[in-house]
């Protein structure tokens, strides 16, 4: 069976568990009470208020936090303080933990999974449930696909009551639990649709010894293209939990992803940006980033892009690959000239310019002593060579 989430996770805006819990609770999904703490003392105080055992959970935008030691059970308030002390400040997949969620430990009779994702191939939202809760759905899909049940939702009518009921009965033999689960699934779908989500997950959904069905965990991803009409959701973005360079890129309307290589790439268009990275690799180099300056003709964007690239200490060669369409070559050239007059690049720059207003762009660059190439392969090869000769050369030898 295919990975059920493979084609759905297509947006970069994550929200924290505690935020998703609040949204779920607002839509009537039974979510046990919990508190957010930013210090160990706050965590201890929360545990004290709840009384009894609590769970302390790291609030980060990264999967696998349990395996990383970011989820701990604490029997007393003192233990909760120690757990929070250990978790706060730890790094999970390169992201520092700044908050923990403290929630009363639940008695669990059974755990299930409920998720809603966009299925690209079927062009429909798909609700998935599995009686194997508490583990990654990807793992269940690989090992026991028969445990997963899926239904596609017709976007014109939404999730039918009978579909939610059928999924509830798939999960539980007990009619009471099945009814509660159906109600949670219907509410989760409504939450998903009205929040601009591309993913909503409850993992695990539990039944306690009293027969109550509850959502113990909450996860949501949001389509950032939908945020313009959802200011309440947009306000949940936690920029402190993201890569600072990528946050600044987004503010400058650039699409930027930092990688590990040393050839800094600045390209117009996402497909061409990816193909440029691939070509860097083909010629023996490693790309330092994905960077798409988009289709606009704004020299300021080029300046912002060059700032981002030069701030990455790994970059020792910069490559521009511009195929002018909506983007005009003269605007890009002006941006390069302006940026280099304001700051010292400190590393060689290789420029490929072709398309709209190519001649004007080349002339602007030539007046400032920059050479521009027309051929993409030649430019990439040159940039890779310049990166290599800088890492390979002795300090002070001009690098050829």
């Amino acid at each position: 069976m295919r990975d059920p989430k493979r084609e759905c996770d297509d947006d970069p805006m994550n929200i924290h568990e505690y935020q998703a819990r609040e949204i779920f609770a607002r839509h009537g999904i039974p979510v046990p009470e919990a508190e957010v703490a930013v210090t160990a003392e706050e965590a201890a105080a929360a545990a004290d208020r709840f009384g009894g055992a609590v769970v302390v959970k790291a609030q980060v935008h990264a999967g696998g936090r349990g395996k990383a030691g970011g989820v701990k059970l604490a029997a007393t308030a003192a233990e909760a303080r120690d757990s929070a002390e250990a978790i706060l400040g730890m790094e999970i997949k390169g992201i520092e933990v700044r908050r923990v969620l403290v929630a009363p430990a639940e008695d669990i009779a059974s755990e299930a999974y409920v998720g809603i994702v966009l299925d690209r191939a079927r062009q429909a939202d798909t609700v998935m449930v599995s009686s194997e809760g508490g583990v990654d759905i990807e793992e269940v899909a690989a090992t026991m696909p028969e445990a997963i049940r899926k239904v596609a939702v017709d976007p014109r009518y939404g999730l039918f009551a009978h579909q939610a009921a059928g999924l509830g009965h798939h999960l539980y033999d007990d009619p009471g639990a099945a009814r509660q689960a159906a109600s949670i699934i219907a509410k989760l779908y409504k939450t998903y649709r009205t929040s601009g989500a591309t993913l909503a997950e409850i993992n695990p959904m539990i039944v306690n010894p009293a027969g109550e069905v509850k959502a113990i965990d909450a996860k949501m991803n949001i389509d950032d293209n939908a945020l313009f009409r959802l200011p309440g959701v947009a306000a949940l973005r936690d920029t402190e939990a993201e890569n600072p360079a990528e946050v600044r890129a987004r503010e400058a309307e650039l699409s930027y992803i930092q990688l590990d290589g040393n050839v800094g790439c600045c390209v117009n268009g996402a497909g061409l940006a990816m193909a440029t990275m691939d070509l860097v690799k083909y010629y023996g180099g490693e790309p330092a980033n994905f960077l798409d300056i988009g289709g606009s003709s704004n020299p300021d964007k080029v300046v912002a892009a060059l700032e981002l690239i030069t701030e990455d200490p790994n970059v020792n060669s910069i490559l521009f690959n511009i195929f002018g369409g909506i983007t005009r070559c003269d605007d890009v050239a002006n941006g390069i000239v302006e940026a280099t007059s304001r700051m010292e690049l400190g590393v060689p720059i290789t420029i490929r310019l072709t398309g709209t207003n190519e001649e004007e762009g080349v002339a602007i660059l030539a007046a400032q002593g920059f050479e521009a190439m027309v051929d993409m392969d030649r430019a990439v090869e040159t940039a890779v060579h310049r990166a290599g000769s800088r890492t390979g050369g002795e300090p002070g030898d001009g690098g050829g």
Partner: protein
Amino acid sequence: MGIFIGDDTKLVVQGITGRDGSFHTRQMMEYGTRVVAGVTPGKGGRTFDDAVPVFDTVEEAVSEAGANTSVIYVPARFAADAVFEAADAGIALIVCITEGVPVGDMLRVLPYVREKGARLIGPNCPGLIVPGRCKVGILPGQIVREGPVGIVSRSGTLTYEVIFQLTRAGLGQSACVGIGGDPLIGTDFVDCLAAFEADPETEAVAVIGEIGGTDEQVAAAYVSREMSKPVVGFIAGQTAPPGRRMGHAGAIISGSEGTAEEKIRAFERHGIGVARRPADLVGLLGRRRQ
């Protein structure tokens, strides 16, 4: 002959008075496309560049100017409604250039367009061009040249790059279609491959794919099952890290099927020659057409 557009195309531009809409309307007219109408609500009754009547609604553009094709340049928040309006008015081909359309909007748009019997290309796409005849969208007219190669691509500027390299090598194009980089799009690779197979002027096809989704795999299976014409391909994103979205909303790897490697394997398994670099498409097409 080309595919989807040609001499019979009578175009209405939705958003003709906007910055992008007006610029590209002039470019399309210069290329020879018959732009019969423009639509901007509230600006009906004007004439664009002393040549094109502007209407308040697409319905009027159809009834009064005979439009059969629409191109959409309106902002993302209005794009879904613009598609609904065009489909409602009986437009047969709707090309949505707009980028950043919420995926939830497209979920409702796609079944509606299908019910109305219309074809949607895009959103978030550069449109299409039949060299020497007609262009709808933003593909630069000066880089194409008439010839036997059909091009279909999920990208914008990467498509220009491929066209540019083919043209420089003397390989002209029968039609170039950018289907868009979003997770939900109206026209997929298979729709275009079927049209190229049926088009007598197309002798070979280049498929430009990228990471994310499984459309390339579906296309590869279609090629080996249904196509007699040679097909070659390129996949962008071979160095993309998993789990990160690479600009296009559809370009993310989550699970092994979305990777470039998996797509390249699918192409090879189904007899599609795969170029490691865009430049290698030239040699592959040259050999396959023998």
